[in-house]
């Protein structure tokens, strides 16, 4: 392949955009008319295609390779009120060596925690090349003032987070104040410094695929490195059709700007079968170049264990069951 996504955009670098996008990226009226002018998404056709691709099989021999790819894309997540330093350290140990019995098992992409536990995660991971991601901006509802949200971002970044998962203000978005949402993402983007920014759209609250598409473009224009479906706290969380919309948006973004942006479905992806369906979607809708942790992540907690069990099944020739992999409590 002539081009490869080996260099994702670092922070801060002013993006060179084609005229119509540069115009929209100035915010305000131009942004609004750009978002309203996006072509519609037909729900029936979208869901039909998602179902059709979901029926595709990776094929037996390619399965181990696909499982390894998926493991490397997991953002191992704990986002509970009951999270403690101990829980974070346990998860960090798992992120380092997901399956000690099979040392060739790839590491996960990142550990995802609340901002106050970032320092704990950073120290628990040490030099191991696993990223630390933190949710921020009054996760999961996004209901707070801008000052509080930015303070949270600073807390996470100062503690050493490599990636920030922010939520958008759905209230502002749904009442049509796109400019406000845009400005907020811009501010967070600036506060992230060198950290990667994932923008959570919380698609389960956006109501329509048209809105999901609009929110994706809004986030991309505001400088998101990733668009992410959900917090995991709202049902429905990630679905295949919604992920199709996000994948198509980043593909279009690449076609028009040459910049690589990523997608992260989160919540509700629990089994290897689910994960493989998503990988097929990535490959078909965005393209094979997106099959890398730099451009695609799974936000999940239970998924990793199922991937590990299925990986063992592939290697050992039989299914071992949940007692053979470490529980996450």
């Amino acid at each position, binding site marked *: 392949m002539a081009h490869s996504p080996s260099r994702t955009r670092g922070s801060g670098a002013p993006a060179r955009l084609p005229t119509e996008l540069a115009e929209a990226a100035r915010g305000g009226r131009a942004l609004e008319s750009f978002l309203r002018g996006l072509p*519609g*998404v*037909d729900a*029936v056709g979208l869901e039909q295609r998602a179902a059709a691709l979901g029926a595709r*099989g*990776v094929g037996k021999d*390619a399965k181990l390779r696909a499982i390894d*790819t998926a493991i490397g894309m997991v953002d191992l997540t704990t986002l509970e009120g009951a999270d403690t330093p101990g829980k974070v350290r346990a998860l960090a140990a798992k992120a380092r060596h997901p399956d000690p019995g099979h040392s060739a098992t790839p590491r996960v992409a990142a550990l995802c925690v609340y901002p106050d536990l970032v320092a704990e995660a950073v120290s628990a991971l040490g030099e191991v*090349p696993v990223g630390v991601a933190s949710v921020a901006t009054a996760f999961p509802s996004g209901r707070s003032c801008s000052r509080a949200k930015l303070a949270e971002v600073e807390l996470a970044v100062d503690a050493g987070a490599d990636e920030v998962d922010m939520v958008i203000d759905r209230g502002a978005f749904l009442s049509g104040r796109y400019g406000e949402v845009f400005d907020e993402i811009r501010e967070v983007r600036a506060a992230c410094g060198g950290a990667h920014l994932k923008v959570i759209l919380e698609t389960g609250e956006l109501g329509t695929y048209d809105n999901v598409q609009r929110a994706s473009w809004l986030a991309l224009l505001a400088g998101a490195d990733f668009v992410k479906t959900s917090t995991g706290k709202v049902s429905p969380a990630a679905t295949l059709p919604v992920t199709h919309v996000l994948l*198509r948006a980043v593909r279009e973004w690449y076609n028009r700007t040459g910049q690589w942006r990523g997608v992260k479905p989160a919540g509700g992806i629990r089994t290897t079968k689910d994960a493989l369906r998503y990988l097929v979607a990535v490959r078909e809708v965005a393209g094979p170049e997106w099959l890398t942790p730099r451009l695609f992540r799974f936000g999940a907690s239970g998924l990793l264990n199922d991937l590990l069990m299925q990986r063992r099944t592939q290697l050992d020739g039989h299914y071992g069951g949940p007692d053979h992999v470490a529980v996450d409590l």
Partner: protein
Amino acid sequence: MTDSEPAPWEYVPAPESAGLAGLSSEYRLFVDGTFSAGSGEKTTSVNPATTEELATVAGTADSDVDRAVEAASGAFRDRWGGLDGSARAKYLFRLARLLQERGRELAVLESLDTGKPVRQAREFDLPNAAAYFLHHAGWADKLDYAGFGPDPAPFGVVGQVLPWNFPLLTLAQQVAPALACGNTVVVKPAETTPLSALVFAELCQQAGLPPGVVNVLTGGAHTGEKLLSHPGVAKPAFVGSTEVGRRIRHRLAGTGRTPVLMLGGSGTNIVFADAPVEQAVQGVVDGAFFNQGHVRGAGSRVLVEESVAEEFVERVRERTATLRVGDPLDRNTDVGAVNSAAELDRITRLVETGEAEGARRWSSPHPLPERGYFLAPTVFSEVHQSMRLAREEVFGPVLSVLTFRTPEEAVTKANNTPHGLAAGVWSEKGSRTLWTANRLRTGVVWGNTFHRFDPTAPFGGERESGSDRVGGRAGLEAYLDV
């Protein structure tokens, strides 16, 4: 994170086992409830994906046609014609259940015999075939209330000649309403794809259907014409090309028997600038390449509003390039084999004509298998209304792109063919979709979708695409003497 990531995984073949089809070495005629050798010359059925012989098929002589029509008329007189609607329904329900139970076997068999992708046979052909039986089972005891008078009567013996593109599905679409309405049938599947119909005969035995109610013959054009013009056949039915349909109409003129004609004709997709682009691309690509384009009413022509045409065509090419062409038995295959050497030859010639006429050709770079009758999905742009590509029924994996400037122009161009089967309209504006649909002279118009079939919705054409319907209340009329 490092830059040295291994290459992402590739799909590997996930073939369905050909053994599932339960292929016999020989298939025989089904007349009067029993299988028999037939007095005609034996033929062989070929797998178009490998060009290998699948099985020997018994041949039908004129005497076998007589025998079958006699059996059907005996069954109508003595067993089926006087049966209560609810009793007929029982058999139809049983046939639907058997189609579901043996769905996997029949899907693989259908894929082997036609070259269509097994996934499509399993997810489209078979469930729909069963659905037509289920739907018509429900009608069998309600015909008095269907709006055709208090006591609508069947014709008697129905002779049905079927095409090779959806052998089992078209059989279900024709046989189910015929039986539900109280007729008995003599079916002749296409010469190149007789196997699933002969296995369907087994299902009739399994269902305990009285002998002679369903009879299955084999053979080509000669047997077909013999059957349709047989004096014992009260209602001849033909599903296939316009050319043959015209010949049949000629032949039957003055006999007092009007044939059921479900004929051909390429369909047209109309894409307005405000269409949901992603889904329109997908719909246009599916519309043209579904079942290798071997679909009556396939969306082989697309009319795109000129202001978005260039970008749209680029996207269509991009999407078409992702279609996986190859072994029909691989569950990941999207486009399988063209049905026969003769068809491949015909389509190839049409493609050459298109190039010679000045249209711009693009073919999918997807590698094709070395054996078998395959044709890469092909998109022609800069096609004009006067070219053969735009005027003739393509019936293969070839899509022609034309442009228009105004809705009036789109409608005029779409209607400017002798056919009138199906069209798709792509727009986010409902009023525009309805305005367009009202003016299209086709039997079916889909809005923001294509190739959606449902036994409750009538399907059929206008003008040279034939005027009869299958499905729904309207579909019953073909097999009731009203």
